């Protein structure tokens, strides 16, 4: 008598992808300049990304639910694949935002890209040391955004393939057990 295997028994998550929706990366962009916000939003849309734009690091933290108020609605469902932030912003800088994100257990895995109009090597080093994925010089080029997107999609694909492979191994394992039990 074959026992019906349910997914909970197999302990496999149904959510195989951290993408916001099939094939769509969700990018959170942070910039205090209204012109740059409009520009980066368009660059990301043209690159087929879902975009959320905010005008300060504080608002970015609020959006992520990291502002200490702990009341972000749907926090668990928030899927961000990439954060792009300007470096020089009033109040909290992009660098400080980067640090806060890397300190957070929920979001430290999310790649953070810093954008700056100033090509200052110590600044770039500091950001990369703090865990920034990349440092882009403004004005950001469409080619930069596409490169980021492609590299992230490849990474997602690898994760997806690993999960599928794991599923396959687990399914084979169960099949072998069933055979041995002569069901």
């Amino acid at each position, binding site marked *: 008598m074959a026992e019906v295997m349910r997914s909970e028994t197999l302990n496999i998550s149904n959510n195989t992808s951290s993408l916001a929706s099939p094939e769509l990366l969700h990018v959170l962009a942070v910039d205090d300049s209204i*012109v740059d916000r409009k520009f980066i939003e368009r660059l990301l849309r043209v690159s087929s990304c879902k975009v959320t734009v905010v005008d300060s690091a504080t608002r970015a933290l609020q959006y992520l639910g990291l502002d200490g108020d702990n009341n972000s609605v749907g926090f668990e469902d928030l899927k961000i694949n990439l954060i792009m932030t300007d470096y020089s912003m009033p109040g909290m800088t992009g660098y400080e935002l980067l640090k806060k994100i890397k300190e957070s257990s929920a979001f430290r895995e999310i790649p953070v890209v810093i954008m700056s109009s100033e090509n200052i090597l110590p600044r770039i080093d500091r950001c990369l040391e703090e865990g920034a994925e990349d440092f882009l010089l403004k004005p950001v080029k469409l080619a930069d955004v596409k490169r980021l997107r492609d590299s992230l999609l490849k990474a997602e694909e690898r994760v997806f393939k690993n999960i599928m492979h794991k599923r396959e191994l687990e399914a084979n394992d169960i099949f072998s057990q069933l055979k041995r039990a002569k069901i």
Partner: protein
Amino acid sequence: MQRQVALIKQSLFDQGYLDEQFIELEELQDDANPNFVEEVATLYFKDSARLISNIEQALERGSFDFNRLDNYMHQFKGSSTSIGASKVKTECTMFREYCRVGNAEGCLRTFKQLKKEHATLRKKLEQYFQASK
């Protein structure tokens, strides 16, 4: 009308008012977003008017807060770069240099020139967008 558009555009580039960044913006336009560049330009002129006003107030006060002025110019330079406003960007850079060395006279002179370039660019872009419709 097409020829006039091309002529205005060519002159904007030849005279150095615009640089390649403007072309990058135009390449982001498509049938679904045919007014993207004009929208960016509108935002830019609204934002830069605010900055100009802030700088004017700061300069009128007499006591030169070079840090504050440099801050405004950093923003101004940033958005000017993003839209490809080449001459305005150059004036911003010069202004910041004068701030760095604490040269009030230089700041005032450069600011006057900056406003002139800014106004000219605005007029020419308005003509350009009008002719493009």
